[in-house]
């Protein structure tokens, strides 16, 4: 339950969505100016699992307008890139990763994880999806909400990071009031925008992710460890893919954020072609490249480090 009042908006298109967000934002800014406590800015609503739980438990989590993204066509699409996104502009500089036009698969941000879990398109994403929460919750919990959420885990982003996915999003236009464009459709390299978290711009609506076909078909490895039973936040989740140059991987649960780095990829790649002590050394460097894991109520850093080491061994075996 959300103790306060909210306005619920359900747009049918990306354009309506960012417009709804902008209008609600302007309204709340005006209201905020009038009240000492400020007003809540609007939020996009997907699966709602984070919004509803956080709003109930935390007084500090303000909810004003909720813009439901589940009827936005681009956010529900899966498989081929929606035609409407073909002309999306690069946000900032054209990022690395696969060049536009190459073969790939698209996953809408509003897709519930259960659908991704059942789908055959990208097995590593299916695995990562299956690890999150429980089946019934995954019937609601969305890919975009998981990636954009506040929790440290955000496991669904791991396969996307490993695969060097591109993201697609809609931004409020520059000057819609003055008759300018109401929205800008943009794409970007996920890795280049992801440092501990995906830094979304105000009002930015995540539409989906595009993954190179080669990555969806590459050999993959997935390890997830919890404190006890499988339905729990992870102590570690490791997603890895075989690439042309070796391997790419991302690690969740071990830090307060999902992590990857080029250096870590390089070290794992080295390990794949090495053996014995050289391999052990490379795996050690792969782990070290991402830093010291954290200690929290679920597990200590040492234990997490041991799990990472074991997981990397498994991954190296499976990918080699």
């Amino acid at each position, binding site marked *: *339950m*959300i*103790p*306060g*009042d*909210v*306005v*619920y*908006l*359900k*747009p*049918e298109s990306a354009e*309506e969505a960012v417009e*709804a967000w902008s209008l609600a934002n302007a309204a709340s800014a005006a209201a905020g100016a009038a009240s000492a406590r400020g007003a809540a800015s609007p939020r996009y*609503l997907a*699966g*709602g*699992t984070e919004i*509803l*739980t956080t709003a*109930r*438990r935390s007084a500090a989590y303000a*909810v004003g307008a*909720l813009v*439901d993204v*589940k009827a936005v066509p681009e956010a529900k699409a899966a498989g081929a890139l929606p035609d409407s996104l073909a002309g999306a502009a690069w946000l900032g500089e054209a990022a690395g990763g696969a060049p536009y036009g190459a073969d790939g698969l698209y996953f809408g941000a509003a897709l519930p994880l259960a659908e991704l879990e059942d789908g055959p398109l990208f097995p590593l994403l299916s695995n990562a999806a*299956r690890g999150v*929460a*429980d*089946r*019934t*919750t995954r*019937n*609601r919990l969305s890919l975009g909400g998981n990636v954009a959420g506040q929790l440290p885990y955000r496991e669904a982003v791991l396969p996307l990071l490993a695969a060097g996915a591109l993201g697609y999003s809609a931004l409020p236009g520059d000057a819609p009031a003055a008759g300018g464009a109401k929205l800008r459709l943009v794409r970007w390299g996920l890795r280049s925008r992801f440092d501990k978290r995906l830094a979304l711009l105000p009002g930015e609506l995540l539409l989906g992710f595009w993954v190179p076909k080669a990555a969806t078909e590459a050999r993959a490895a997935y390890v997830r460890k919890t404190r006890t039973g*499988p*339905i729990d936040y992870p102590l570690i989740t490791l997603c890895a893919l075989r690439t042309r140059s070796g391997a790419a991987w991302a690690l969740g649960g071990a830090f307060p954020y999902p992590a990857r780095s080029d250096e870590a990829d390089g070290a794992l790649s080295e390990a794949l072609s090495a053996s014995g002590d050289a391999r052990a050394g490379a795996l050690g460097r792969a782990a070290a490249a991402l830093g010291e894991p954290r200690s929290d109520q679920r597990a200590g850093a040492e234990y997490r480090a041991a799990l990472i080491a074991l997981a990397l061994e498994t991954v190296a075996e499976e990918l080699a």
Partner: protein
Amino acid sequence: MTERKGPYELRLRVNGEERAALTRPAETLLRLLRERLGLTGPKCGCENGDCGACTVLIDGVPTKSCMVLAVECEGRELTTIEGLRDHPVQRAFSAENGFQCGFCTPGMIMNAVALVRAHPEPNEEADRNWMGSNLCRCTGYEGIRRALAAARAELAARAGLMPRAKERP
């Protein structure tokens, strides 16, 4: 674009009936069902998505009703435990002692109804994956496990007896 604010009249299809209730857009489906529609079958065990006692079917898909706003359900077909009538899964839970205190039971049964529909054949992996969504503190899951098997067996026997289309729970 749909817009809902303030107290407003929400119209829903629940258990095959059109229902209307005055509510706020901030209200969860669980609270609407329990507090406005008198459907107290779905239980509130955590309001946090963890226990599954609040599970209902939305267009046939098991959903934790504490994790959904009622307003999101306009135009959907909702089924709560009250909407089942002598369903084979209910009978199996009764016969196999798939409950003790009964608090988890409505959610457990709703999830199981969807599960045996999606996986009519025995399937331990699917059972774990689906039923792991619901906590039961009383039974140790033994009776629930037996109930799933019994329900599948009865549904299979029925499917053999009558045309599949008629096998509507």
